[in-house]
């Protein structure tokens, strides 16, 4: 995979809503190709606003966002969404066509591709998300939430963005469904090289899938680093009203016995237990 740490470069970004609310303050970030990032933080901390800045929907009030060499302030929304796709928290807020095929074709049509190109992209996206053929002409609202989410992701994939931001991919899903969605995002990341950014409150999911964590609190980035390192900073997390997963909390509470305070999964803590008792 091509190493390109500066695929997205965010410099001194501020964003203010028209009513004066400061949603983002002094954000500096670099995001590369092929990263798997979890964006975490309290409700209202600026996660969704940041995402909408990254895909060009919102333009910075101050500071700059450069994506693939393009400054979001000087680029059209079409140029931006071809690079950074955003999948809404609630797929129902995004889906509006009367069948799945048209829903996925809407984006490619909108960026003025030719008809054969549109068909190619829709078919490719449907194949990647694995939506069974019987659903292709079905109204999205007759599908389960998990399938609707796949349609929502497919409609973004059809634009072939490098970066895919998925807002709360596991909300309302049970654990089995959550793991399916996450394994699918993992495959997009590992096999197709997409940069994946998930916005989530589910810390065990973060621990299992994300390589990097960006924690936000009160419109700022308060921690940014490898998942293990960020979860080890429980004091910083507490300030931003976050807590690491139970397993990490447990490992931290017995760190004096030799457990690693950055432990992320059940598998890891078992291995440590084995080496500490043998």
């Amino acid at each position: 995979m091509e190493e390109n740490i500066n695929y997205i470069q965010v410099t001194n970004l501020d964003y203010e809503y028209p009513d004066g609310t400061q949603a983002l303050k002094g954000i500096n970030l670099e995001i590369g190709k092929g990263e798997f990032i979890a964006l975490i933080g309290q409700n209202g901390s600026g996660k969704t606003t940041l995402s909408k800045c990254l895909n060009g929907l919102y333009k910075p009030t101050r500071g700059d966002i450069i994506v693939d060499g393009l400054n979001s302030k000087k680029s059209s929304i079409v140029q931006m969404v071809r690079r950074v796709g955003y999948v809404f928290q609630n797929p129902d807020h995004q889906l509006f066509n009367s069948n799945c095929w048209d829903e996925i074709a809407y984006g490619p049509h909108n960026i003025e591709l030719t008809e054969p190109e549109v068909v190619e992209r829709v078919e490719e996206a449907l194949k990647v998300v694995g939506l069974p053929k019987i659903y292709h002409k079905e109204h999205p609202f007759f599908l389960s939430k998990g399938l609707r989410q796949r349609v929502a992701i497919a409609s973004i994939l059809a634009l072939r963005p490098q970066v895919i931001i998925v807002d709360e991919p596991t909300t309302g899903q049970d654990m089995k469904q959550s793991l399916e969605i996450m394994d699918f995002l993992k495959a997009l990341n590992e096999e197709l090289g997409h940069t994946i950014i998930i916005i989530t409150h589910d810390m065990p999911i973060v621990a299992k899938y994300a390589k990097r964590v960006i924690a936000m609190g009160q419109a700022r980035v308060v921690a940014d680093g490898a998942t293990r390192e960020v979860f080890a900073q429980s004091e910083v997390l507490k300030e931003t009203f976050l807590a690491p997963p139970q397993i990490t909390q447990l490992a931290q509470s017995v760190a004096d016995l030799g457990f690693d305070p950055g432990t992320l999964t059940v598998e890891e803590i078992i291995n440590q237990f084995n080496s500490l008792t043998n």
Partner: protein
Amino acid sequence: MSEVIKITDYSWKYINTKTPAVESINLTVEEGAFIGIIGPNGSGKTTLAYSMDGLIPGQYNGIKKGTVEVFGKEVEEYDRGELQKLVGVVFSDPEAQFTAMTVEDELVFGMENIGLSVPEIQERLDWVTELTDLKNLLEKPPYEISGGQKQRVALAAVLAMMPKILILDEPTSMLDPISRMRIFDVLAKLKKEKNSTIIVIEHSLENLIPLADRMVMMSDGELVLEDETQAFFQKTGFLFEKGAFPPGLIQFFYELNQRNLYNGDYPLTVAEASLKLNEMIKKGK
């Protein structure tokens, strides 16, 4: 303690489906109990919840067998609206219950509907606003606030009605971990101070476990396990088999048990687990 809900040999099949959504359910809920219901999506949890406040069979077409009694009376025998004063439901999709143009009107709407006096409405409004931390949102339209805030409004609107039985269908799915903890703190307070009977459907078990007296597992429309919380999670192997995912702590001790490294009770909190690990490691050395 008296029984507030008694479900006997109860099955419900929606008119447009082939198989029953819930089948042969037997469940008794005591006054003041805090019950957690878990199970995969599609296992019948929400159908069961709707059956306890009369939404089923009242608002849905289907075939019912058996009985669902609330305060000793079958749900069908209540006059329209009477049962809903006793049983409040917070839906998993908060938008499904919003009707008003501001958060304040949303909270007041239900109270006006049951004919409370103006001073009483004001008093309850102040109480729920404080309890669910909504002071800054009262003037806003419910559709303009975030998903997490909507969930708090939905909960507050139901709390304001002070139902004796409170049913919450995934009340915290859109909330961050701390807001989630706050909602569970509110529930703990209600249980303690008002002796409310509380039934919570939840995928996220970490906050539920310390509060729940009893747990119920649904799978494919059947109630497959019901027990006191501590005893319930000792059957972790069975829970896995039925598609439940116990929290990380329990999974860890279950894995140790599977490898013959541990044979005690599974701990339910980080503090308990920490104590046990201390003992085990020190003994091992």
